[in-house]
Structures are given as C-alpha cells and as structure tokens.
C-alpha cells in the first residue's frame, strides 16, 4: 500500500489547540509587559565566577541612586543571588490584577528572582518524572524566563538588567523572547582564560544581533593577571566601561553608571 501523506503545513484546517497561536500569545505578553522598558541590558559572561551578579547589583544600585528607574531580572535560576546583593526585603510576592509585583530594594531597584520563591537552601527542583529530566528541564527554565519577563509588573523602566548565568544558552532564550535584540554588558576578570570563555559567549550573542555596550573588568588588582578587557574591547569594538577593584568604593559604581548610556 503506497500512502500519499501530505506535509504538516499542507494540513491547514483550524484546530482548537492552536498551538502556534498560543506561542504567539506568549510572545505578545512579553512584548506588552516590556513596552514601558526603555532598554533591556543583558549582563553576560561565558565564564562562571567572574562576578556578573555582583556587577549587576552594584550597577543597578548606582543607576537607581542616580535617579534612573531600574529593574533586575535574576535569570540565574539555579544560583540566584540578587535578593541578597540588592538587600531585598523578605516578604511574600504579591499578586494584583494577574501580575506579580516585583520586590523593591531600599534604593528602589525593582527585582524578581527565583531566590524569592525557593525554600532557603533548597535547589531549584521540578515536579515530574526524573528519568530523562534533561529533555524537559531546559524547556522549563526557558518558560520560567518567559514568565519572569511577562508576568512581573515591571512598569516603566529606564533599564532592565538581566543577570545571566554562565554560558550562552540563557542569552539565546532571552534574545528569542524579546521583541528586539538586547544590549549586552560584558563582564570578565583579567585572565586569558576568562577572556577566551567570554569571547565565545560574546560571539554567540553578536551572531544573534546583540549590541555589545562595553566590557567591565572585575577583580582587578588582585591575584588575577592579564588584559582580558582590553583584548575584548579591541576585538569587538567596544569600550572598557570600568575596572572594578577587589574592594570597590561607591564612586566606582557611580562612574560605571555614568558610562552606561
């Protein structure tokens, strides 16, 4: 028996599921929620342990002190640290009119983080079959990013800083969800190892049309030697926005905030 099977796209009868429409609705919710956000700034590094979250928090607090309305989306779901770094109050998340209110730091930074939701000391774990969990875990984390963007009442912001985990996968998910490619703030430490890891991540981001805003070199003046920031700046045609010492003064963050235009 020879079957003449048509292709997926040739079957065009309207169906109640409308899965493509549901996905489009999800994207529309993100776009609507971010309509009042002037700029989404992804804080990126391919390398773990270079201080992305530390730089994100220091910059966000300085921006808020300078009068810019600032939000932080902590996209490191497995190692969330924004609540502590921003000194967020310990309180339940409130829901109003089908949106979640972000937590607000003493300086006025609006933030949402998995750290606000998880039991103290507990890892991020999901219900469901643990066998072959690698198949669906990444998809669930991408869904969490979408919901953090779409369901939190970010309001009108000058800057929404997205603190990304190490690697490039979360950046790819972010870029796919946003109406346009985000600007990228690159964080590195001075070493050649960090430079090489950051280079890979930044290349991936640039291939997705992201615009590198500049590079911040963290942990300068300590045991880590090298010229990673200068090397990356030259290679990608972006400025070195700041060199953050081991013990940064408030002025350090204020100067960085002034350069993030």
């Amino acid at each position, binding site marked *: 028996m020879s079957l003449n099977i048509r292709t997926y796209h040739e079957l065009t009868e309207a169906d109640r599921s409308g899965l493509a429409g*549901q996905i489009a609705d999800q994207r529309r919710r993100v776009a609507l929620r971010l309509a009042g956000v002037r700029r989404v700034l992804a804080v990126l590094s391919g390398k773990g342990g270079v201080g992305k979250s530390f730089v994100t928090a220091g910059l966000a607090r300085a921006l808020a002190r300078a009068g810019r309305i600032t939000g932080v989306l902590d996209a490191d779901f497995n190692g969330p640290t924004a609540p502590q770094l921003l000194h967020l109050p310990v309180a339940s*998340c409130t829901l109003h009119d089908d949106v*979640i209110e972000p937590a607000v730091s003493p300086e006025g930074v609006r933030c949402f983080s998995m750290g606000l939701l998880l039991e103290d000391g507990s890892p991020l774990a999901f*219900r469901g079959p643990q*066998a072959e969990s690698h198949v*669906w875990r990444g998809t669930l984390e991408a869904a969490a990013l979408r*919901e953090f963007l779409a369901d939190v009442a970010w309001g009108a912001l000058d800057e929404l800083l997205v603190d990304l985990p190490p690697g490039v996968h979360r950046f790819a998910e972010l870029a796919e969800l946003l109406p346009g490619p985000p600007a990228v703030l690159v964080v590195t430490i001075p070493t050649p190892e960090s430079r090489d890891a950051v280079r890979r991540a930044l290349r991936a981001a640039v291939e997705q049309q992201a615009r590198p805003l500049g590079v911040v070199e963290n942990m300068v003046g300590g045991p880590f030697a090298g010229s990673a920031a200068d090397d990356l700046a030259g290679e990608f045609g972006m400025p070195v926005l700041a060199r953050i010492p081991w013990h940064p003064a408030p002025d350090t963050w204020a100067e960085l905030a002034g350069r993030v235009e």
Partner: protein
Amino acid sequence: MKFLCVECDRQMLFEERHVPGDGTLAAAFKCPACGRVVALLTNPMETQLVASLGVKIGGRTIDEQPLETVRGMVSTGKTDAFDDSGERGAGSGPRWSADAQERLARVPGFVRGMVKKIYSDYAKEHGLAEITPAMMDAARSELGLEGM
C-alpha cells in the same frame, strides 16, 4: 503535531483531553469526514515536555495565570512565597464544599493560591455555584492539570 485520517485524507480535529493518571496525557482527535476517533497518549516525560512549553493541547479555556508554569512545576518553592490575598475576586465567587476545601488544603502552599483561582475560574466559566471534588476532577481532566 497534527493527525491525518489517511483513508479520508482529512485533518483530524481535537475532541477532548484527559489525564487518566500515571503522568499520561490523553488527547482524542476525530476525523470530520468519517468520524473515526484516535487518542494520542503521551508518556510522563512527553507530558512534562508539553507542560513545560506552557501550551495546552486543545486550547486554553481559562486565562493563563501569572507564573503559571513556575508555580505549577517547581517542587521546592516556599509555602508562603505568594500572598494571594490581593488577587482580584478573592473572597467572592463560587462556594467550596467541605470535601473540596479539604482537598485544596492538601495542595502545596506554593501553588495553592493559583490552583484555587483556576478552579474558581472554571466554576464561573461553567456557571457552577459550588466547587466539589467531582468538579475538580472534571476541571483537572478537561484543563490537563496533571497533579493539581
């Protein structure tokens, strides 16, 4: 994913959804020409994958809840992570029978407020004055709420 009735060369259309247990999601599709019905059964991993996309096979019948996927799927969430008292319509809407309240009380605190709202919305949508365990079962199956 679409289903084709090969004999009629017609796209089969979604009929209804069930969650019979064991992590299985069943979706029935019917040929509009010959009336033949087939059911798609997903294994627990496939069910989880569909749920993680935040889409509903058969379409949505009630509005998406804020952080629906996170609240429905995270198993290590704080009991008091959400204060639902400010939710629109809280304190009003359909009555909860004693049995239904008891069942709701067994839902983890992290997701309980959302589950309560979903069942309330379902009851309103269907013009039901009281939420009972039987209604919860019907809603759970119809909405594909595995485990809620």
